[in-house]
């Protein structure tokens, strides 16, 4: 295992120390492993809390700041955080207007956030609404599984919903918007290589030299199929076609090509070019784009494509100022 870490058991704590040192405008609660925006709670604003296993940086801690999340809880690598972290985050961002929990659909995340919401309900008057993101079209038979996984749409949702909360919208409206975004976003990913969970010390799976995995999840959960490696043009088609088959996208989408951690930007741009070409042929204009490693899977090589159907309101909220380590503009 070749990684820039100290003891594998300390990876998350060490990375949080790094975040705290690099971003003085964030406040890191090291005991609870929660990244807060420095001025939380913001009075009168709906608080946005997300979180999940580590290993997906900059998600979620890197999306904390004005215009996006108020707090993010970090679990161990690929392991959901625990309820008391979410309780601490919720209490720390409660500015009197309630708190939205943004939860990616994984059994562990859902159960831990559920227990946290139960604890908050029992202990305090804070109103909590939970939105579960499940946008991974690679999961076809949601009836026989834990349901679609939450992937790339989460990043776009946190940005857009963050802007809505910053405008002072009430909790119910913010939650409705979040659900609408989850309904309008679809993703599909692929991997060229596996990744190594530090505590495990070995690659999670084995992906031979000539093969790639289409439809993989962000923890290395296997995908739809293994196929021989192919040119970026064909890979883009393998990702975009199931997305278009699953949802009727029309003109004006946000197109997000995400890197999984080990794939450099030059390759992501090559993929973006092919994705854009397919969308153009399909008559689906791209209103906004995002290209880069925003939701990683440790050092896995590969990418995912997310399309989100936008409209004037969503685009206005997308363009609104955001000031986080991972996404920043207008501020």
């Amino acid at each position, binding site marked *: 295992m070749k990684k820039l870490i100290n003891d594998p058991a300390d990876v998350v704590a060490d990375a949080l120390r790094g975040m705290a040192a690099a971003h003085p405008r964030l406040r890191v609660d090291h005991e609870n492993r929660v990244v807060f925006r420095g001025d939380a709670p913001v009075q009168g604003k709906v608080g946005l809390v997300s979180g999940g*296993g580590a290993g997906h940086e900059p998600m979620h801690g890197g999306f904390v700041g004005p215009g996006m999340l108020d707090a993010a809880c970090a*679990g*161990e*690598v*690929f*392991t*959901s*955080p*625990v*309820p*008391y972290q979410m309780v601490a985050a919720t209490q720390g961002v409660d500015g009197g207007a309630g708190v939205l929990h943004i939860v990616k659909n*994984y*059994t*562990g995340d859902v*159960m*831990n956030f*559920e*227990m946290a919401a139960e604890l908050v309900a029992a202990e305090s008057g804070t109103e909590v609404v939970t939105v579960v993101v499940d946008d991974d079209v690679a*999961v076809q*038979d949601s009836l*026989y*599984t*834990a349901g679609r*996984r939450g992937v790339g749409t989460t990043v776009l949702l946190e940005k857009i919903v963050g802007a809505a909360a910053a405008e002072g919208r009430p909790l119910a409206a913010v939650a409705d918007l979040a659900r609408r975004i989850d309904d309008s976003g679809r993703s599909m990913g692929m991997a060229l290589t596996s990744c190594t*969970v530090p*505590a*495990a010390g*070995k690659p*999670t*799976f084995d992906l031979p030299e000539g093969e790639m995995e289409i439809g993989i*999840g962000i*923890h*290395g*959960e*296997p995908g739809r199929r293994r196929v021989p490696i192919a040119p970026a043009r064909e890979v883009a088609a393998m990702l975009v076609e199931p997305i278009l088959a699953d949802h009727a996208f029309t003109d004006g989408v946000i197109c997000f090509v995400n890197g999984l951690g080990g794939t450099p930007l030059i390759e992501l741009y090559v993929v973006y070019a092919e994705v854009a070409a397919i969308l153009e042929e399909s008559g689906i204009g791209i209103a906004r784009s995002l290209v880069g490693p925003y939701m990683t899977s440790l050092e896995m090589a590969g990418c995912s494509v997310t399309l989100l159907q936008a409209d004037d309101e969503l685009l206005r909220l997308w363009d609104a100022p955001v000031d986080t380590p991972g996404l920043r503009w207008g501020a």
Partner: protein
Amino acid sequence: MSDTPTTEQLTAWVTRFAELVREHRDELTALDSAIGDADHGSNMDRGMTAVVAAVTEAPPADPAALLKKTGATLVSKVGGASGPLYGTLFLRMAGAVEEGFAPALRAGFEGVLARGKAEPGDKTMVDALGPACDVLDAGGSLAEAAQAAADGRDATVPLVARKGRASYLGERSAGHADPGATSTAYLLQAAAETLS
């Protein structure tokens, strides 16, 4: 076994379970690598190490307190799917332990079902825990219950997962034992070794 176990016995149980988890940590992670995300061994080891530390530092006064401390520690240290599930198991056992070990385990099992909404045959820890509860309820020994849990674990091998991360593998999840069912088999093995 329908007697109420003592605090000492239960402490020995969770301590022995922690040992077994430590010993089989890599095996549990390898099973989770095959059909999940390669963290079940470290998750359970982190949790049970914390449990042993907690009950050693401030020994709980009675069986319910011991089980509550164990459950609460697991909930707050493990995360993932196994944290809430094992945590709920012990927390619910605390509420029923005065009636005896078998009723307590049954209550814990029901907590797991309520929290995780898995059904038997979904290829989860339910498939090891359920058969063990059935044996105890029918008056079987802890050794028999441990055997039933081990058999339940083995029976998960051919199953296609329908809950948890392994469910994303579909047909490809068949052929490997479920990690949570495997750790549950160790939980019952520890019980047979310490509570009889």
